[in-house]
């Protein structure tokens, strides 16, 4: 089968009458879909080394609802390529049937009906059960569990314990190797303290200590003074009779996308040339049977890195929260590197089995395994740990703030309904013309008809720089901010994409042409009353999450709580999405669900 390309493979499947089942090239034989708990145990064992991968769980210890995006545009060379395929286009490519559990796990289609039928996803007690099962059946000594980062942030308990609740959860889960991104939004010494409590090895080849800080001895626990690396760049792991290298790649734009003020002594970057030197060194000196990179680059950056750097067998990636049910092959001058990404919020566990012979990966099987919380029994130890961690905050978290007739979600290139609530709250509570909220990809969903608890608000806002502001801003500056953020999302060069979504706006309408260059994407900027935004005129702008210096206002969860308490019930949300030019045939948008 390895000689068939994708199209031939699907053709063959349809000839054999297998079309419509979830069969992907190189997926494990017995797992075309998961519909009952027995299906989890039927995943075949393939080859002689198993990697399990979770990423971007964003501290969601308990099961959640999470709606996949209806807009995730791919442009230029990424047009129509994974992960830029959503909704019905996704269902078509991967043979997913309407009303199936796979449709619920992987797409935004029929979301309300599916959420009602299939309930929550993820949960660390459920993940623990699955991981233990997959490990036990394959062999403890031949299995490694990797965590791609964005684990210590995203919940109230993570914020209150400064990430420590998640460190212990990772220890109970038995994670072997991990890397990070939002981990770096705590203070330097808190991070280093947490890493001492973590059983797993934390690896990152691309985090360097500032030369002056290094010289002055400002940073403890520096891994290697001569390379300037704060953390161990890779680790060698025994897997049965084989030895594999696991390289870490932390989020390259941490100090740009998040505040540098918490970690002033560290410098990030993609550093592909250092990655290549490292892979060459490992290949020459360490005699590995396979080289794996646990990465927080984001999918498109991983694809470009896979092309630019040779000698990596698999990049197990995260950051962009893409649930892609296949390993994406990238040809480079040294061979092929496969890129995978394991979604977000604990919704998926990736299973990658390698067949290693003669110091080489001969073949593999890959499955993106959805975690359906109602099918998978909870692990008792993890369950009781989670209950204990939550106990001091339980009453606060479970407090109902309002109810909603609309499904509230964040994920997507443009405004989600939950962001709209945040933007509306900022405008109303702070008395502003316009509001802005960052295009984060974390934040789970509240299906229609459900109560909005304080915990739901916390999943959208719990982080270390939540302070709000109102300030006077010139029209030309509003334009510049939108252009700048749009370029971080839609730049032709993936190495210049930071992996967030477009900034969310309230009280503002605009038109965007994503395929243009910076300065030419945004037009027709108007206030929601139809008044044109004038370059030289001042507007009152409210927002939160300032990267430069700390903002003066109350934390945004207070703003949102005040607004929702006042409203009591959300009947409908007036979603202020922009008009998008040039995406008529783009499979990265589900037009039936796009409101502008």
């Amino acid at each position: 089968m390895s000689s068939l390309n994708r199209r031939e493979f699907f053709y063959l499947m349809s000839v054999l009458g297998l079309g419509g089942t979830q069969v992907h090239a190189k997926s494990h034989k017995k797992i075309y879909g998961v519909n009952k708990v027995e299906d989890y145990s039927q995943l075949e064992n393939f080859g002689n080394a198993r990697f399990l991968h979770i990423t971007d769980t964003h501290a969601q210890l308990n099961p959640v609802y999470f709606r996949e995006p209806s807009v995730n545009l791919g442009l230029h060379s990424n047009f129509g390529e994974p992960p830029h395929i959503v909704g019905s286009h996704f269902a078509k490519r991967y043979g997913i049937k309407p009303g199936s559990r796979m449709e619920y796990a992987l797409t935004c289609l029929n979301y309300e009906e599916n959420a009602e039928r299939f309930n929550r996803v993820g949960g660390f007690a459920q993940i623990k059960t699955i991981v233990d099962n997959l490990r036990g059946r394959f062999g403890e000594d031949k299995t490694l569990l990797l965590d791609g980062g964005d684990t210590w942030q995203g919940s109230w308990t993570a914020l209150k314990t400064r990430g420590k609740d998640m460190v212990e959860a990772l220890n109970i889960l038995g994670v072997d190797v991990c890397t990070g991104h939002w981990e770096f939004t705590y203070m330097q010494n808190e991070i280093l303290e947490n890493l001492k409590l973590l059983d797993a090895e934390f690896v990152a080849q691309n985090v360097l200590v500032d030369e002056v800080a290094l010289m002055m001895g400002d940073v403890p626990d520096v891994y290697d003074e001569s390379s300037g690396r704060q953390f161990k760049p890779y680790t060698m792991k025994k897997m049965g009779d084989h030895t594999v290298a696991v390289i870490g790649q932390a989020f390259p734009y941490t100090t740009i996308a998040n505040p540098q003020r918490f970690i002033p002594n560290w410098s990030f970057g993609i550093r592909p040339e250092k990655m290549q030197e490292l892979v060459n060194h490992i290949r020459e000196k360490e005699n590995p049977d396979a080289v794996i990179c646990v990465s927080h680059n984001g999918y498109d950056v991983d694809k470009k890195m896979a092309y630019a750097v040779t000698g990596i067998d698999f990049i197990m990636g995260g950051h962009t929260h893409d649930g892609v049910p296949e390993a994406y092959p990238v040809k480079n001058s040294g061979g092929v590197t496969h890129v995978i990404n394991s979604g977000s919020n604990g919704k998926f566990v990736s299973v990658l089995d390698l067949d290693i012979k003669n110091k080489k990966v001969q073949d593999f099987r890959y499955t993106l395994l959805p975690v359906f919380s109602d099918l998978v029994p909870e692990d008792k130890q993890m369950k009781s740990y989670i209950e204990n961690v939550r106990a001091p905050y339980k009453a606060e978290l479970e407090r109902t703030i309002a109810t909603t007739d609309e499904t509230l979600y964040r994920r997507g290139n443009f405004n989600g309904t939950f962001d709209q609530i945040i933007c509306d709250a900022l405008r109303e509570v702070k008395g502003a013309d316009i509001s802005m909220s960052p295009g984060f990809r974390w934040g789970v969903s509240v299906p229609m008809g459900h109560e909005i608890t304080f915990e739901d608000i916390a999943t959208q806002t719990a982080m270390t720089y939540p302070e709000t502001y109102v300030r006077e801003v010139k029209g030309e500056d509003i334009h510049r901010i939108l252009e700048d953020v749009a370029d971080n999302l839609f730049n032709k060069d993936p190495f210049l994409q930071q992996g967030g979504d477009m900034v969310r706006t309230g009280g503002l309408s605009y038109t965007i042409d994503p395929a243009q260059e910076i300065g030419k994407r945004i037009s027709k900027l108007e206030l929601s009353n139809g008044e044109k935004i004038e370059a030289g005129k001042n507007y009152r702008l409210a927002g939160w999450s300032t990267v430069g210096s700390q903002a003066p206002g109350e934390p945004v969860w207070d703003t949102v709580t005040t607004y929702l308490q006042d409203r009591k019930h959300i009947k409908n949300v007036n979603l202020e999405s922009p008009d998008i030019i040039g995406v008529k045939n783009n499979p990265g948008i589900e037009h039936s669900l796009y409101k502008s």
Partner: protein
Amino acid sequence: MERRSFIKFGGVFALAGTAAYAGFLEDHSKAFTFEKSDKAMNNLYGSAKAASSDKVTLTVPDIAENGAAVPVTVATDLKDAVMMTLFVEKNPYPLIAAWEIHEGTIPEFSTRIRMGKTSDVTLVVKTKDGKLHMAKQQVKVTVGGCGG
């Protein structure tokens, strides 16, 4: 030697070196006053045009972590380099630095530069024969703040 003590040692050495050569430096101060890089180039090199060269190495980040202090490393493998100059096209005064390379000097320097906005950064190396060689890369300066 540990990196820390090496850097300290190197720092002292570099200072001493500068003092020793100071008396021989040409005065390039006028070139730093031009608001367009082509005018500064013209002041330094006359009508000579620079050609891209893989022997000229400019190491800058794709996106600046902090526009107020962008790390830059300049280097060249050209054996007979006599001068290196660094330009940031969009800065108010594009000429940022000029290094005279004396015989026996290893032509590799690191510094930090201030950048107000996204711009091309250009390194020009002049060799003994008067020819100009260059490397250019864009450095993005962004408002940031929306990472997933």
